[in-house]
């Protein structure tokens, strides 16, 4: 199994542990990752130029297409943006031809052949939890028994569901199932589907902080020890808000790290 790994902008510079743990876990499960010369997914461009956003995204999709690979990303925002661009390219013919023109300047073309996948559904398929398993997966050698974990889904993986095509947007289960597969116990917390606040940190910092703190408080009140993430934006956001006075009873952990630990992979390879 082979994918073009799309890390996005945040992971290499701000959250290298996510790259390390993703590579470690997927290598362990026999997935080959290829590095292409990807650029920004286009998410930040949405606020200035619709075409600019789609051109940015389409360039990456076209690169993967040229390499004959599907795209795998550990970032839910990149997932949402790339899939959003695919939908727009599918439904808007004039946009498609403008984008084709822009890509042609680089000798690239988009036809929609390269699919975009997030790490979580791929892991669910690989360790067999998509078949409704409720016991630790076969790949797990060191079950994280008793660890109470709150799943942070990340908005752009779930919504809009017709674009993200990730899980049921109102009652998703994939993350909890994946947590159960590591032997840990998923925590039911009322704010699990809420926004982490990250998109507002530039425009309205007090509001953003309010949203993040509400989530952290809710996870704590629900008895979670670990806030488990699958998106660099959510993860960095929780860490940033907690950086001043972190609550020792709640720590953030990437899902790839949690799974890596359960697989018995060395902590260093997981960026821990």
């Amino acid at each position, binding site marked *: 199994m082979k994918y073009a790994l799309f890390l996005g*902008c945040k992971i290499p*510079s701000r959250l290298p542990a996510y790259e390390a743990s993703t590579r470690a876990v997927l290598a362990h499960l026999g997935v080959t990752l290829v590095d292409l010369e990807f650029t920004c997914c*286009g998410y930040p461009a*949405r*606020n200035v130029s619709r075409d600019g956003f789609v051109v940015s995204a389409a360039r990456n999709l076209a690169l993967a297409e040229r390499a004959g690979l599907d795209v795998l990303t550990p970032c839910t925002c990149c997932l949402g943006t790339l899939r959003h661009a695919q939908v727009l390219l599918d439904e808007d013919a004039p946009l498609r031809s403008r984008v084709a023109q*822009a890509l042609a300047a680089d000798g690239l073309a988009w036809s929609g052949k390269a699919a975009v996948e997030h790490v979580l559904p791929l892991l669910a398929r690989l360790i067999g939890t998509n078949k409704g398993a409720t016991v630790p997966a076969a790949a797990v050698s060191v079950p994280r028994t008793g660890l109470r974990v709150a799943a942070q889904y990340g*908005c752009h993986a779930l919504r809009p569901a017709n674009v993200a095509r990730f899980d049921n947007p109102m009652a998703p289960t994939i993350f909890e199932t994946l947590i159960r597969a590591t032997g840990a116990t998923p925590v039911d917390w009322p704010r699990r589907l809420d926004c982490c606040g990250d998109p507002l940190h*530039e425009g*309205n910092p007090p*509001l953003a902080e309010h949203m993040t703190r509400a989530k952290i408080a809710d996870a704590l009140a629900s008895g979670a020890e670990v806030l488990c993430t699958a998106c660099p934006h959510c993860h960095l956001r929780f860490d940033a808000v907690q950086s001043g006075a972190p609550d020792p009873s709640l720590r953030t952990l990437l899902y790839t790290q949690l799974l890596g630990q359960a697989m018995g992979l060395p902590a260093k390879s997981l960026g821990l």
Partner: protein
Amino acid sequence: MSRTLFHMALYAALALGALGLLWRMAAWFRVRIGPDARAVTPAERVGALFRGAASALFSRRLLHVVAALFLDVLLQRRLYANDKLRWLGHLLMFFGFMLLLLLHALAPVVTVPLFPGYESTLAPWLFLRNLCGAMVLIGIALFLYGVWRRRTRFAPVRGPMAAAFIALLGFVLMTGFLLEADKIASPQAFHRMAQENGVTDPAELEPLRALWAAEYGVAFSDLRQPLTPELLEKGRAVHAEGCESCHARPQSAFVSYPIARALASVAGALDAARADVWLLYLHVFACFVGLATLPFTRFYHAVAAPVSLLVDAAAPKREFSAAARASRRALALDACVRCGLCDTDCSVAPLARHLGNPTLLPSHKLIATGALAGGSLLASGHEDDALRAAEGAFLCTDCGRCTSACPVGLDLEDLWEAGRGDLAAANLPAPAQWVRARTASAWAELLRQGQSAHVLSDPDAALAPLSADRNSFSRCVQCQTCTNVCPVVAHSTDPGCGVDLTPQKVMNLLRLGMRDFTLGSRMVWDCATCYQCQENCPEGIRVADIMVELRALAVHRLGAVRNWKAPS
């Protein structure tokens, strides 16, 4: 060449170069980039330099500095990692040039004391000089090839002084080779030397001339006798006595010798024109011009870039005081060589091309950051440049690739952050910030006043097709589901977080044809794009998508009527 003239020119060039260097280096302590840099004085910055240098010199950090000197400065490790061809070109130019400088230009103070019996016309110096010169020329060729190969729509800004530097370097090399070739081929030079060594008797002179014509490349036009082996043998005896100790066969000068052969037919004419004299003047004075203008040509990077690398090695990253950070940023402006490797790796390069705005790219952004710090970006007449610089600065995703790609190891992320602070201070913050300067209705009023100017270039169709199409929102029944699920609305009961409208009201304004009233709305700009509204809308209205499109439209339309230069 007259020694007095030579020395006068040398000292004048040295003095000019030194004054220029002082002036340029003073900027490292004077130029202020970033709001935190405003809080420190130049004196504090000089103090921070001395403290930093002292603590590095007398601690184990010294090992890092020495390692950086060899690996980063001399061997260019970072360039090797990013572009091997350019690394090869740079290494050839650097070592060729440095060896020529030390062994050839500074021969009286370096080579002569180090190598007793040194003569510039002996082996291996003839060969070495040509080797070094050829290295520089090949380096220049590789450099120019690299520039051509990596040409993009937005090439890094290379000032006229960058071309001047390469041209001057090439000129010095070419005049050097020509001068050497001329001297090899010159009968006049031969006769002057023969006379000085007392070889005047035709019985000795003719065989020597024959030998030098046959084996040393002198282009005599008046050889009377055929070059028989006996004659050459006689010449060799004379040569062994008076010439051999200072002259090796020039064939090892593998560039100059072929040039000398090519010049053979015109050697007499060159002698008549005193080519040896003016070529020497051109060669030496071009070097002096290079020395005097060093602080103002691309050559200056040879000073600033190593300083930047060593300063970085002296202190672990990001552990700089505010004063040291301020100096480091100013130094970065000088240490950047405009190689453009950062641009090649830039995450938003496709967006830069799409928007036609090169200031998204690091090499251009660095210049804009410097222009902002120097004040020229805010001068009247540069309004468009300033707006484009701000657009570029705030579309940067902070991916850090430019910093990793930089062969000089500049901490560009720190520079960008400081630059954004300066932009915000100049009333050019991110759109999400400047849009807050007015209420939604004040923006709408401003748009109404300036409306005629925007009718012709309304970009709605491309920027906000959903809000321009009634079908996308007219099904809204004002049920308030969107508002009820909106986390922004929920959290805005808190003081300081309030939004003016709700998503449902934004939809209603669109239905009423009052789109201009939504553009500056807090709700539109504080939308977290969590898509709860869109997911939950019973009518399937793409509420969040509409919000995001309205922001793009607002950047364009409100940006056109926003008078950022007027005090608000």
